[in-house]
């Protein structure tokens, strides 16, 4: 693959100079010139409004053997790397070992270098540091720029993002920019022992089916990974990683979106994802008043109240409490499903729960197939007894 300038087309505007992540374009006799250190990454091609930069690469025929290493794009919150990144590192470690390649973390942000040690202790061989004042948390376009440029420059085989709101906003932009595939919200990742392709498994058709997706002809292979599914490795104190600083080149067009303010007070944050116990209700709860009973139980257990799409659509619950395919994905220690039939749209969001209790009057409800404890009885008879039992046992203690 090669990059060259069509001299008759070049107008000497210099807009390609900044686009090059390795600084391989200079001006000679008023025209752009590609120097030897060009890595043929193609980053400059789209920067030229004249179409004067040519590349013989197309997505299909890039030499995929050039692409090596497994990358995890770290996500930070309030300056600390999030637990979902640690989980993906755990999974990424296994993928890197299966490929016989390195596990690298891309740590992009403002003052994030304090996090490198934790990355090494959680399995990373290499930490690519992308530090820039414009890479504030939540600023998607600058992050997409820094990460796309780093991928073009270093050519990883696999890039994994967290399927958080931020990751799911940024990864598609990176994939479109690079012209490569992206598999959303993966719950399983493996390396095919023969082809070495990344096997990306995700729920499809509303969770009724699981699909394994591959991107056999393009690199990198990119996925967003559902938080709460993969397991982080136990940290290995003193484990070291190679630290590399990469150049960050944020452009004016990456700053087109302004965040004017954050409104916390108006939006009571319900942290279902981190809840240890969830009391959840569906159609069988029947009313907003019915949810009052669930709230009473939740209060005793120190639990959060959640529900199905129906419960939200009926107005019994606010949308931020919806669990399932179109709501949140949760994995608490205990999930008490009350009057929930267990349609796959709901169960897709709570299958990761460690212990599931199902209370339902319909003995054929699919929820019973995934429950640890099945109570085939009216929830309005059982829950008051449960509340009493908890109160009594509580007093005995």
């Amino acid at each position, binding site marked *: 693959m090669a990059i060259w300038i069509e001299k008759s087309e070049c107008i000497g505007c210099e807009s390609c100079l900044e686009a090059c992540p390795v600084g391989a374009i200079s001006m000679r006799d008023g025209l752009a010139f590609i120097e030897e250190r060009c890595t043929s990454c193609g980053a400059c091609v789209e920067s030229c409004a004249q179409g004067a930069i040519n590349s013989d690469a197309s997505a299909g025929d890039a030499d995929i053997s050039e692409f090596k290493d497994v990358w995890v794009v770290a996500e930070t919150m309030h300056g600390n790397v999030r637990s979902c990144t640690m989980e993906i590192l755990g999974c990424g470690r296994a993928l890197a070992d299966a490929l016989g390649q390195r596990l690298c973390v891309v740590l992009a942000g403002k003052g994030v270098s304090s996090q490198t040690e934790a990355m090494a202790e959680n399995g990373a061989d290499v930490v690519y540091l992308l530090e820039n004042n414009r890479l504030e948390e939540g600023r998607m376009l600058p992050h997409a720029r820094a990460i796309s440029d780093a991928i073009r420059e270093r050519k990883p085989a696999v890039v994994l993002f967290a399927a958080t709101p931020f990751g799911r906003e940024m990864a598609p932009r990176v994939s479109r920019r690079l012209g490569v595939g992206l598999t959303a919200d993966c719950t399983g990742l493996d390396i095919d022992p023969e082809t070495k392709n990344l096997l990306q498994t995700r729920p499809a058709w509303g969770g009724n089916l699981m699909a394994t997706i591959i991107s056999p002809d393009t690199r990198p292979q990119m996925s967003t990974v559902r938080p709460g599914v993969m397991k982080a490795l136990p940290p290995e104190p003193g484990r070291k990683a190679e630290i590399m600083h990469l150049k960050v080149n944020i452009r004016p067009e990456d700053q087109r979106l302004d*965040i004017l303010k*954050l409104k916390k007070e108006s939006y009571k944050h319900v942290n279902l994802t981190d809840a240890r116990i969830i009391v959840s209700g569906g159609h069988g709860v029947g009313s907003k008043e019915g949810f009052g009973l669930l709230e009473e139980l939740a209060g005793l257990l120190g639990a959060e109240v959640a529900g199905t799409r129906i419960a939200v659509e009926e107005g019994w619950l606010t949308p931020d409490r919806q669990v399932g395919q179109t709501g949140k994905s949760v994995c608490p220690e205990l999930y008490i499903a009350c009057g929930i039939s267990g349609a796959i749209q709901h169960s897709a969001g709570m299958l990761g729960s460690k212990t599931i209790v199902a209370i339902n009057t319909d003995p054929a409800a699919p929820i019973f197939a995934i429950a640890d404890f099945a109570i085939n009885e009216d929830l309005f008879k*059982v829950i008051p007894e449960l509340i009493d039992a908890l109160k009594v046992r509580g007093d005995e203690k």
Partner: protein
Amino acid sequence: MAQLDIKVLIKQVPNTAEVKIDPHTGTLMREGMESIINPDDLHAIEAALRLRDAHGGKVTAISMGPPQAVDVLREALGMGADECFLLTDRAFAGADTLATSYTLGKCIQRLGRFDLVIAGHQAIDGDTAQIGPQVAEFLDVPQVIRAITLEIKDNELLAERTAEECTEVVKCPLPALVTVTKEANDPRYLFIPLLMAAFEAEAPVKVWGSKDIGADEASTGLKGSPTKVQRTFTPSHKKKIEKLTGAPADMARTLVDRLRERRVL
């Protein structure tokens, strides 16, 4: 300012609430499956119509899909959209999100100037939520994902959107792309005279193929899709289930005991 030009991206999806899996083959039973307009897209149409009604302008609904996807475009007309484009071509079939975003993006470019592209946050069949950001990238415009309020002022978009711990008030210049969630609005009902007009021969529904949008066929459909489905299988959830029996009070006591044994409580 000039009249607003708003494109709305909509998708026809199977009603996944009714999806049935053949227990023997583990494959999807498509027979008799109902097709609906993707739920989030109704909110996208509503958001577009409200902005048009406030500022004046035009709402164009665009959908890529098989010929029968014209139904969802007629629904958009029934709600009040001004015109529709159905992108249908054998060359578009089998598209993943990258190829779909290319096709939608090419159509928007072909239609010329626009101020805003609005799409539903995610589709219930794929749940990828990737099309919005990928189309935004293709068009090289900023994006506001998961918007719950939209306002246009001095050629700028002001929006509130849900983030993880709060909502964010954001601002960006037009043109821009927005995706909306169910919290954004309550979609209006179909207006029957408009819906009936959408079935007339002169209804503003155009059907475009690959050539009409100037697409490179290597970038559309199956050919333009880097991701391939290698296999599908039914999820298995094997667990040991304990059925609790007796009077409600007995079941409640047993449950509390079991949960304590497991140290869950």
